[in-house]
């Protein structure tokens, strides 16, 4: 391997590729050649750096220079200035949103300072399409260690001691899950990796597969050894073409090296992995639904028990874990259960990856130790609220989770605290909302999602969520009553209590948590018919501020229902009864004379 003095790591995640990172890589290589630096600098396409807000990202090693929003046109300058002459290109450096200073070393970025990267340890660090880089970082050493030095029972025991809990949603102890699958006797068993990430606004599993497929493959093989399975299946969303490609490459490479296949590392253990594609059904994140989908059926969940650990894929004992859970596992075996258990809180060990999005400055993928507070995540890592607006709520756990408010900002984040606060960890989506977001509308948005994604098998979820959505629509349309709020609550509780699978059992959470934390907002909608955030069209009240109105008549002409009257060059008036709240006048007014309530 050539000894390069400089590595230029370019994010090749989906987000950055969407903003031309492939062209950036091509141009950097061309420029390097042009300057004759082929032996000095190497361009490496890596997985996601997490800092998706400002992609494409180019990170220069060894000086940790972090260039953001790099365009293909910037490449010549990066090579000729930075690589050749050692001068940083300042205009491309990340600018701290608070101090407005350029930060040269990514170590000093607030975004990275509080992060601990375990599941993402290789993302943005290695070339995911090169198994050598993974091996150089101790890749497959954990598998080697487990296969040669531990019995399956010992290996399961270690995982139990580490305290790792499933990262897919419920937080079930992973070691215990393996133990159950191991205890069921069968001629064949299966290890399944759930990569059917479906939460709107969560993309950590995709990023891990794009950036570090090998760690998932390695963990699946370890799991196979522990539970006595020689077949692994990855159930992956078809909408993730890049992750699929990288995973396929990784599997091929592992096979070529004999790290998958028969008699791995001469230990007699054999393990193979094949891919199964999801086809756009959120409910397939539920493990029984996922298994049915892999069997070529409609992805409808079935009553548990029997659990997949007893009767899963093709009726055989099956262990299902999600991508992030698997990604944690090799390190645990290398560093030990005690090391892992030393990170995090008493009942939630290790780290959690969150997809930070919404009205926040630093949108992206972060990995933080369990027990960190929302405040740290949102204001330190996330860089605070966009455009200096006021923080209102943060939604965690996607459509299964709830909204947390100001009063939860200092609550340490872990599985149990989030549940206690009426939300859940879920897969780790974290959507930040500001004062402009109407919480009733947010609840409606999530219900719309659930209604669309409900499989239709059980009545409470199929019909109940539809009715919840209709009630919320009624409230947003300004036709709600206080009785509706009562009804909303009862219906939510019954749906939670009676639904067949996790989807229905959690789908009312966005409603219940907003009802609890933002009851004022609901009451304002039904009593005063006001949407404080000004989001609900039907509840907007348009008035003309006489002082600012010049009587230009632009609004009169724009109004489709002739609700605005007034003499030329005299202040105009809106007839509230006629107004259909379309907002046309507001858009047309050049003098900010129209006030919306």
């Amino acid at each position, binding site marked *: 391997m050539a000894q390069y003095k400089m590595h230029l790591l370019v994010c090749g995640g989906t987000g950055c590729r969407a903003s031309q990172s492939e062209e950036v890589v091509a141009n950097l290589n061309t420029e390097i050649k042009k300057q004759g630096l082929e032996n000095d600098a190497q361009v490496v396409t890596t997985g996601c750096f997490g800092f998706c807000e400002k992609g494409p990202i180019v990170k220069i090693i060894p000086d940790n220079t972090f260039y953001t929003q790099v365009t293909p046109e910037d490449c010549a300058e990066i090579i000729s200035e930075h690589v050749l002459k050692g001068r940083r290109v300042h205009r491309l450096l990340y600018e701290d949103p608070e101090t407005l200073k350029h930060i040269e070393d990514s170590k000093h970025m607030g975004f990275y300072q509080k992060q601990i990267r375990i599941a993402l340890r290789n993302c943005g660090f290695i070339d995911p399409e090169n198994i050598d880089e993974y091996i150089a970082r101790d890749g497959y050493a954990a598998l080697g260690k487990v296969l040669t030095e531990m019995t399956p029972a010992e290996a399961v025991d270690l995982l139990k001691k580490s305290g790792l809990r499933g990262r897919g949603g419920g937080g079930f102890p992973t070691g215990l899950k393996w133990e159950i699958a191991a205890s069921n006797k069968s001629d064949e068993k299966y290890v399944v990796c759930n990569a059917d990430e479906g939460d709107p606004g969560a993309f950590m599993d995709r990023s891990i597969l794009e950036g570090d497929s090998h760690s998932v493959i390695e963990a699946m093989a370890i799991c196979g050894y522990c539970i006595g399975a020689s077949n692994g299946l990855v159930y992956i969303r078809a909408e993730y073409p890049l992750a699929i490609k990288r995973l396929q490459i990784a599997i091929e490479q592992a096979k070529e090296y004999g790290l998958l296949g028969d008699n791995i590392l001469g230990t007699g253990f054999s393990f193979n992995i094949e891919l199964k594609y999801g086809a756009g059904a959120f409910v397939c994140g539920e493990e029984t639904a996922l298994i049915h989908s892999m069997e070529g059926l409609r992805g409808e969940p079935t009553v548990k028990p029997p659990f997949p650990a007893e009767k899963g894929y093709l009726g055989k004992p099956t262990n299902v874990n999600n991508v992030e859970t698997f990604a944690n596992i090799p390190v645990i075996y290398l560093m030990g259960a005690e090391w892992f258990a030393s990170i995090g809180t008493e009942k939630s060990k290790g780290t959690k990856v969150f997809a930070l999005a919404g009205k926040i400055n630093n949108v992206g993928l972060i990995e933080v130790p369990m027990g960190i507070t929302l405040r740290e995540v949102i204001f330190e890592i996330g860089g605070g609220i966009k455009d200096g607006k006021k923080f209102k709520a943060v939604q965690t756990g996607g459509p299964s989770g709830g909204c947390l408010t100001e009063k939860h900002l200092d609550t340490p984040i872990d599985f149990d605290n989030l549940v206690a606060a009426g939300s859940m960890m879920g897969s780790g989506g974290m959507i930040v909302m500001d004062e402009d977001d109407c919480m009733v509308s947010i609840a409606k948005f999530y219900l719309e999602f659930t209604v669309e994604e409900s499989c239709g098998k*059980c*009545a409470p979820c199929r*019909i109940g969520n539809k*009715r919840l959505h209709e009630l919320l629509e009624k409230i947003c349309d300004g036709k709600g009553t206080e009785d509706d709020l009562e009804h909303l609550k009862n219906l939510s509780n019954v749906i939670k209590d009676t639904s067949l699978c996790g989807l229905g059992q959690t789908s009312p959470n966005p409603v219940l948590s907003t009802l609890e934390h933002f009851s004022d907002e609901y009451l304002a909608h039904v009593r005063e018919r006001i949407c404080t955030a000004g989001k609900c069209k039907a509840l907007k009240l348009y008035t003309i501020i006489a002082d600012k109105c010049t009587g230009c008549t632009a609004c009169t002409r724009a109004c489709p229902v002739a609700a605005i009257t007034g003499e030329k060059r005299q202040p105009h008036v809106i007839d509230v009864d006629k107004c259909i709240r379309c907002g046309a006048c507001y858009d047309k007014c050049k003098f900010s004379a129209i006030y919306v309530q």
Partner: protein
Amino acid sequence: MGNIKVKIDNVEVEVKRGSTIYQAAKQIGIDIPVLCYMNLNHMQIENRPGGCRICVVEVEGRKNLAPSCSTDCFDGMVVKTKSIRVLNARKTVLELILSDHPPKCLVCSSSGKCDLQELAQRFGIREVHMVENAEVSTYRKDASPALNRDMDKCIMCRRCETVCNDVQTVGALSAVNRGFMSVVAPAFEQDLVDSPCTFCGQCVAVCPTGALTPYDDTPMIIRALADPSKTVIVQTAPAVRAALGEEFGLNPGTLVTGKMVAALRSLGFDKVFDTDFAADLTIMEEGAELLDRITRYVNGDKEVKLPILTSCCPAWVNFFEVYFPDMLDVPSTARSPQQMFGSIAKTYYADLIGVKREDLVVVSIMPCLAKKFECQRDEFKVDGNPDVDYSISTRELASLIKAANINFDKLEDEEFDLPMGESTGAGVIFGVTGGVIEAAVRTAYEVFTGNKLNRINFEELRGLAGIRTATIYFGETPIHIGIAHQLGNARKLLNGIREGRYNFHAIEIMACPGGCIGGAGQPLHHGDSSVIKARYEAIYKEDTGKTIRKSHENPYIIKLYEDFLGKPLSEKSHHLLHTHYFDKHKI
């Protein structure tokens, strides 16, 4: 594995390991309401999707409510089946289901028989709390000659899907779409006639609401009865008399042959005949065909097709036309009793009474929906005039009797009319699985061996197991017999034959569980298979009570051959009593 103890509503009960909460509760007389759950244990048919969530109960230590139909008991389990939480949840869920169901109970053909309606009454639903103009899921209506689909009324219990796929292996139906718009339908939500549907109607038999209902020709019959220019005669299938009483509150298994005849006569039918007569005729033809094939086989004819398959079940005929078009020459060519009756009625009998074919209306009362389809097949029409004009089901006959304010219970028994009302015990047992082949054996044995049977009951051919086999010795010659009921079992047998795994001489197949007694036109069993068991016993009781129990001894059959047909498999027989099959392969 021994027993375990659970506590339900403060009552301790010991149950077998593996019992569900629902079963355990039943053991101590607690009747937890269910809707989608159905267990026909005599036929090993179970539908347990756990989808309706009506049967939820509270289990101590569990976060959410548990569906009692599909939650196994564990030792020390504590269950509450009627806490406020449970009752509120059940009621709310039922309201939800009702909110997506047309509220037109009064004019629904399932009114009074609907499980959903019964639950609404039981829960005392007086109002459905939903937003005004709440969306309801609506679908294209579909009418076929045998059954109607109005999926607006579907509650996604999936019973029909289970029956159509797992039990009958027909595969006409599947759950389609997702979420609120999900429904059970044929591919592309097309009409059933364009699907591989066999019209066995078992989906209708298990539908808890009015989503799947029979196609009903009753109004046409009333019109015909009122038309003085028409002579209207009726035939009643053997299974009807063993079930009709249930519609009038009599115990399952009560034989009501005499009352049924009286009611039909009272309704104005000119003659009340018996399909059992035609069943005897079927035995003459089918038995002769069987003997012919066996004799040729024994004599070394390699071309002969064996086994011979019975052909009296119209759903079964539809099934093999769709799924086994390569084996169309295997089944007997004999028409079903319903069609033999129609054919003889419109020729022999019409001549006898001097009525023109088009003025004679033949009505059949059948336990079956496929019969409605069968009587409309083109090959059973002469110049567009069908041999059997209308076929209505047992349930529809009951409605007709009720509508005509006939007090069924108080009717004096009456006798069938002659000549086509005379039948033997062999004709009666056509109504149960194994009955046709037993009837055939009774006759074929005597014809083949020339000896009188010592015993008439062939117990080895009876029972409710899905697939049964037996060997009967015709003297020295062993005759291997296979019997299957439910089309899934038929498929297994047929596949075995296709692969050359079996060496049967004769096979009887019935599409419905238990044979015609479990037909889709019978009073609804509401998931209780003991009802079918009771009818089964009633049929054999009727057989035993008959003085003549072998078809070839029916004097009117003998007369029919003497006066009209000549002999079995004669040219006239071929023309009037036999048929041919078509390749209807569909995907």
